[in-house]
């Protein structure tokens, strides 16, 4: 396999297209003439916040440790993976890029050779997140707007994964794009949908993962939404949380227009105006007009 060894973080806020890209990678690695099983993707990657991996490596029951002590052990886990791996390991990560209370990067220093940061229009994320978590859209927006938001924080029961700090949608993007420990490539979900070959090809090239155009094209075909939906309908999907809503829904770009109220759009845009501008997401007309009128305290400045 022509690839430079080491960890490649596949980082994103939840529901941003991370899993789609991971399925593409699994198909690329499999190199077969039929699509890979969506329920058997973890051979080489997995998710950085896996409780199972943490417990297998440390021998400790994560439920007996405060979140901060778990975070202190996590850098050692990724450093060991990096030292042991002779191939590339693309690992999905929803954690924001943060430091432990010991002051070191929680994902380890020098453990990864690159990071691909996948970002999606926050208005589409809100709709998808509500379906995935079986919450209201307002609750999803709160998770995106709270600067100290986190996944799996509750300790009344055993959460499915380790606690993951999200820092809100803007904070998440800023944490990854502004850190200087790991070189990072930005990949927009909208660009992945518009021209997957070009977007995925650029990400692979950034991570020094060689692949022919033919292989990329085949892997994209095998990771087509219709195929993913077919597999989920027939055999389910392990990463699905909701009992009522399938994991692979529409994957639409701009689907929020029919789903969010004006207030919800405004709440999101007010909270994330600077980062949306930086990532090329246009504000809806009402917010843009209000911003011009100065209603949002000069937030428009960040757009220029």
């Amino acid at each position, binding site marked *: 396999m022509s690839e430079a060894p080491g960890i490649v973080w596949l980082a994103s806020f939840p529901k941003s297209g991370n899993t789609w890209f991971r399925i593409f990678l699994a198909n690329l690695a499999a190199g077969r003439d039929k699509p890979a099983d969506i329920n058997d993707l973890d051979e080489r990657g997995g998710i950085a916040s896996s409780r199972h991996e943490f*417990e297998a490596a440390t*021998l400790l029951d994560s439920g007996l440790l405060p979140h901060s002590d778990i975070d202190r052990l996590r850098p050692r886990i990724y450093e060991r993976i990096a030292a042991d791996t002779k191939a590339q390991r693309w690992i999905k990560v929803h954690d924001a890029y943060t430091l432990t209370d010991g002051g070191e990067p929680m994902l380890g220093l020098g453990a990864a050779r690159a990071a691909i940061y996948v970002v999606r229009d926050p208005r589409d994320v809100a709709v998808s997140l509500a379906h995935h978590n079986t919450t209201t859209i307002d609750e999803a927006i709160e998770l995106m707007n709270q600067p100290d938001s986190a996944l799996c924080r509750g300790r009344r*029961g*055993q959460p499915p994964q380790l606690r993951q700090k999200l820092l809100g949608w803007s904070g998440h993007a800023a944490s990854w794009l502004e850190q200087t420990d790991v070189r990072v490539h930005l990949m927009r979900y909208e660009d992945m949908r518009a021209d997957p070959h070009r977007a995925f090809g650029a990400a692979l090239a950034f991570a020094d993962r060689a692949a022919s155009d033919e292989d990329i094209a085949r892997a994209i075909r095998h990771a087509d939404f219709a195929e993913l939906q077919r597999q989920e309908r027939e055999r*389910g999907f392990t990463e699905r949380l909701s009992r009522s809503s399938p994991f692979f829904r529409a994957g639409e770009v701009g689907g929020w227009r029919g789903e969010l109220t004006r207030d919800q759009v405004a709440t999101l845009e007010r909270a994330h105006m600077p980062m949306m501008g930086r990532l090329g997401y246009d504000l809806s007309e009402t917010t843009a007009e209000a911003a011009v009128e100065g209603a949002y305290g000069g937030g428009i400045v960040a757009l220029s």
Partner: protein
Amino acid sequence: MGEGTSKPPVHSYRISGLAVASQLELLGAIDAPANDDGPDITVRLQTAPETLEGGVAGGPNWEIAGERVLLRVPRVARFLIEGGRHIGVELEPGATARDASIFVLGVSFGILLHQRGAMVLHGAAVARDGRALAICGASGDGKSTLATALCREGFEFVADDICAVSLDEARRPVVWPDGRQLKLWREAIERLDVAARQGAAVREGIEKYFIGAPASVLAAPRLTAVYVLGEARPPEPEAILPLNLPDAMRALDLQAYRPAIRARIGSKPHNLAQSAAVLSHAPAFRFVRPRGFEHMDRLVATLAAHWEALRR
């Protein structure tokens, strides 16, 4: 405590069939009379090295050198587990014996049982009429919850979390009562309505608590089935599926308590022979079911009926 006693008090327990004498009070372990012939296992507060001479790192916080394992738990203690007979504990500054207790009772004992060559399953076990079934699965899969629910339906409690299996004279598998209380998260305590039996928190600041079982076995019951929990994801239906021998052998490997330790301590031929002997009397099944407390009553009835039918 008599005056002039210079030695710290010795607590006496029987854990997984072994007589334990401990300087630390092990919260959640059930007091037992001391063994006349002396303890099988000692637990002491002592100094433990920062690193093991000749040790090989097995994970980010533990290393192994022959019959010794050194385990570090951040901001709690270093645990030195030696030869299947001794657990030494050096507390980190600011930590108390109370903080360390659950790590002695849990992970340190799990390692020690591996050192003694026992088969240690990551699971719970319950029994009826001298026969036991084990429920295995990853942490968070609901093993303790299901065991608690089975105990409400008249099963006796045998073990939780660490399930030590050995072979009797006839090479039939038996499960050792772990001499501990069950541990449940706050959420499960509320949903199973067992708050009246709630004891101390397993660790201060953690919402997981010891729960006294209504009835526990004293002798080691025969193990007659192993159920590995899995989640039925839609559209997959709820089912109890028999595992063929290769899959069952693999399942026992994967369901070992901390497989990384078993792989480093046990010899492969020993592990294989042990698994084969267990499975010849206790077939393994995959129990795929939906998650959620609302299914519990039905799942308990399904499991109990399936297990009873094996006897016939």
